[in-house]
């Protein structure tokens, strides 16, 4: 007997109700509501105090998270499961953004004036580096509860140095530099409530930023007040900090620097380290084992970021005002600039995808993100963004020194 018989009409209704319910239930559990975070990232919108959560492929906006305060010079690290982004704002705000829900999962105002942060090798400690009141602060990555403070206040002068160049090292250690005091400190946070600090004094005048190599062995501080960089080999801490690329300016008058360069682990490409010169329109190239100068590449302006593609085959460079409408691409084997791009006004930051098929550029003054295909060096996508600055992809979660 077919269901079309009048006798079965109520049964038919019930059947359709059941199937509708089944569809609804299936809808709730459908795989499309699940998502990995490996292809996500966050973009800082500095003027509006918001961050975009984006997908890398296809490049698009997933969510906009508001209420993060003053994000001028904000930076980001990721939780080890790459679900959460810790955003360090200039106003001392430390915000934890849930990439999957697109919401704030926590926020503390931890200082008056902050510049960035790092996450420990075990992923349990988030550390913020501060300008005001100076020093660094350690927080529980889960709850953002404070764990410890490391003061950089000099007991004699009473002056607290601004902290720059904070980077994580293996074994829950952190390295950072003191701008006024000219020191490098390494903090061992094996006991996160009682970090133990080793100080290296007299490393040079005005360290402005620092980096840890991606194997966590070397810590490098760029010096604004001297022609050279300070290097600590953490495998041989007993040898102390030594100067590398000393006197690269040859005593010549420096060109004015309209924006401080940035250093991070992406400066390394195979056997080389690519480092922005200060006050010279050059990228310095050092051997990443002997730290001797190998060459220097003349570029268009004062370099801000010199970033190696994940393959190490090419290095991309952006520039300080008034040259910040330009990006240059250096070919590593020939050490030549092979392409000069004009992707937009106010190019503040660049971020490669994990395997380097694309690079995202933030154009602050054109209110857009420009995605460039690294194979063709052509723009492939343009996305709207409000005064974008830093772009951070989740591959950083698994990388030391990032």
């Amino acid at each position, binding site marked *: 007997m077919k269901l079309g018989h009048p006798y079965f009409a109520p049964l038919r209704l019930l059947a359709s109700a059941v199937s509708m319910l089944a569809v609804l239930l299936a809808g709730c559990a459908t795989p499309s509501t699940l998502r990995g975070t490996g292809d996500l990232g966050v973009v800082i919108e500095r003027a509006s105090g918001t961050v975009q959560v984006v997908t890398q492929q296809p490049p698009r906006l997933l969510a906009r998270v508001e209420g993060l305060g*003053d994000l001028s010079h904000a930076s980001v690290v990721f939780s080890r499961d790459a679900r959460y982004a810790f955003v360090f704002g*200039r106003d001392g705000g430390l915000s934890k953004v849930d990439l999957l829900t697109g919401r704030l999962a926590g926020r503390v105002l931890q200082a008056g*004036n902050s510049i960035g942060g790092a996450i420990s090798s075990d992923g349990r400690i988030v550390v913020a580096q501060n300008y005001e009141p100076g020093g660094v602060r350690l927080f529980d990555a889960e709850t953002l509860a404070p764990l410890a403070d490391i003061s950089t206040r000099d007991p004699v002068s009473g002056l607290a140095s601004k902290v720059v160049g904070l980077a994580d090292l293996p074994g829950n250690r952190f390295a950072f530099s003191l701008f006024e005091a000219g020191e490098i400190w390494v903090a061992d946070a094996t006991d996160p409530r009682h970090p133990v600090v080793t100080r290296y004094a007299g490393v040079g005048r005005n360290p402005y930023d620092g980096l840890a190599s991606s194997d966590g062995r070397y810590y490098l501080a760029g010096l604004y007040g001297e022609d050279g960089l300070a290097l600590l080999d953490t495998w041989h801490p007993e040898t102390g900090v030594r100067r590398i690329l000393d006197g690269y300016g040859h005593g010549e008058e420096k060109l004015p*620097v309209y924006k*401080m360069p940035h250093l991070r682990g992406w400066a390394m490409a195979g056997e080389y380290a690519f480092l922005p010169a200060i006050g010279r329109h050059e990228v310095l190239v050092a051997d990443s084992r002997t730290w001797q100068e190998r060459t220097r590449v003349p570029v268009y302006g004062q370099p801000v970021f010199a970033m190696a593609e994940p393959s190490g085959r090419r290095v991309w460079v952006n520039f300080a005002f008034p040259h910040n409408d330009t990006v240059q691409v250096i070919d590593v084997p020939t050490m030549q600039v092979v392409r000069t791009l004009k992707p937009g006004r106010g190019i503040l930051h660049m971020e490669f995808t994990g395997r380097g098929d694309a690079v995202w550029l933030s154009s602050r*003054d054109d209110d857009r993100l420009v995605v460039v295909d690294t194979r063709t060096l052509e723009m492939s996508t343009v996305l709207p963004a409000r005064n974008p600055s830093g772009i951070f992809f989740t591959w950083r979660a698994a990388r030391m020194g990032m």
Partner: protein
Amino acid sequence: MLYLLARSVWVRCLVLTAASIVFLTMAVEAAAAPVPEVRLRHLVRQDCGSCHGLTFRGGLGSPLTPAALVDKPDESLVATILDGRPGTAMPPWRPFLSPDEALAVVRWLREGAPE
């Protein structure tokens, strides 16, 4: 009487013409100004802000809030903007700003840099 009326009309026309020439000149000068106010403020907030902070509360560069500037005379601030501070990271902005523009920047910062 008629003569006086005619004369005053003539004078009025002359005055009006002269005034419009002055206004036109001012308008042309304003249009030719190297850095309009909106662009100047954008430059200060974004490019000075990269060291001094977008809200001018300081960074590697010193704070530029009204309270931080209160005991510093206009002339010395203008000189710092135009020629930088040797021995520090403060660069000279003379290639990009005129003395008048530097003074406008100082006055704007003293007001708390309103939008």
